[in-house]
């Protein structure tokens, strides 16, 4: 009996570790999307199953999806990232652009409504971490910048139509906010 082939291994690797970062010139194994890094430094591989076999089928079968903490805030934060990192919703969603965390948090604040500053920040950071861990966004904590993650490539054409509409209803990132008022 021969061992597992490279395609099976690549799919399993992506399931275990999330989207795979590979060097330039690595061909995509069967069924995987290849998303070039905007910097030209390699690419991401994301497994893609037919639409009728992906996660949205769960709801149709009456099955619960994976547990997600704070699902609403997490979805709102992803929406805010979408608004800031996808400058032209008619362009492909990948790779989008890099945004600072401040505008993303500002849009997130618009979407959640008024909240205590600490609570706002805490829920934003928790959601950033969750989305980063799951490959929906890439959060560079040192540079404090955010990009869309390779998983966004799994949204289908009709998903993207809905997202474009959502994008259009959201307030865009503001130009640099005025300096905060000096404390008395």
């Amino acid at each position, binding site marked *: 009996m021969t061992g597992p082939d490279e395609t*099976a291994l690549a799919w*399993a690797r992506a399931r275990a570790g999330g989207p795979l970062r590979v060097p330039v010139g690595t061909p995509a194994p069967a*069924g995987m999307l290849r998303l070039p890094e905007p910097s030209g430094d390699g690419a991401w591989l994301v497994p893609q199953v037919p639409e009728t*076999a992906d996660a949205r089928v*769960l709801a149709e079968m009456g099955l619960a999806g994976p547990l997600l903490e704070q699902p609403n805030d997490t979805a709102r934060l992803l929406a805010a990232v979408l608004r800031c990192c996808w400058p032209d919703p008619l362009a492909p969603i990948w790779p989008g652009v890099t945004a600072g965390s401040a505008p993303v948090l500002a849009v997130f604040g618009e979407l959640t409504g008024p909240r205590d500053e600490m609570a706002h920040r805490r829920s934003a950071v928790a959601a950033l971490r969750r989305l980063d*861990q799951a490959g929906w966004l890439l959060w560079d904590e040192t540079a404090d910048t955010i990009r869309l993650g390779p998983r966004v490539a799994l949204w289908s054409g009709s998903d993207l139509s809905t997202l474009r509409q959502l994008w259009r209803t959201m307030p865009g990132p503001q130009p640099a906010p005025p300096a905060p008022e000096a404390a008395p």
Partner: protein
Amino acid sequence: MTSIFEPVLADLGERQRDEILAAFAAVEHSPEPVPEAVAAGLRDATLRRSVAEMLHLIGRTLVRAGPGQWTSGYRDDVAERLTADGGNPLPLADRAVLTLVLIHSVAIPRTEGTLSGDSWVDGTPTPIEELQRRTQLPRGELRQSLGRLRAAGLVRVVPARLRPGTVPQNTAYLPGPQFHRLTETARRRLQEELILAAGPDTPLAAAIRRRRAPAAEKETS
């Protein structure tokens, strides 16, 4: 759409394809095992075989998680290859915390004879305070690891059981639904790894090492 699964699906009718794909989606994406009742592709042995073939192509296998319950997991040969070079996608710190949860919530209750059944998912919930108190692992890291493990379905949180005379605890941990996804071989190996680590000098550990000795040795004896 031509896909990686065409070899399995090519000769099938529309309806069979749909049922197989739905069953595939259910076992791959549902965090809990899927009852046969909800998917024809799991009820029917022939369709189920096609689901298993689809899974095989992507390094997975069908796992029976109880009577009439199915989920999917990594093929044993794939898991072996993926970890052969010592690499593991789950960070070491998270693995350490997960091991602690397995010991406190499953192994010790087993020794005390308070568990029935033979599952990694059932156990006695361990309050977070107990996990923190009885370990070398730094507190802050332990909490962060628990958060990540929870997001991945590797641990689950239940309200701590109230014991008379104790202060009610905050949260308590059990192994999460991902443990349903371990194959029979992997579940057995997990038990063995724990025994080898905690009691390397016991006869049980010796028996495990003997069992694992290369097959060639058996043939010559």
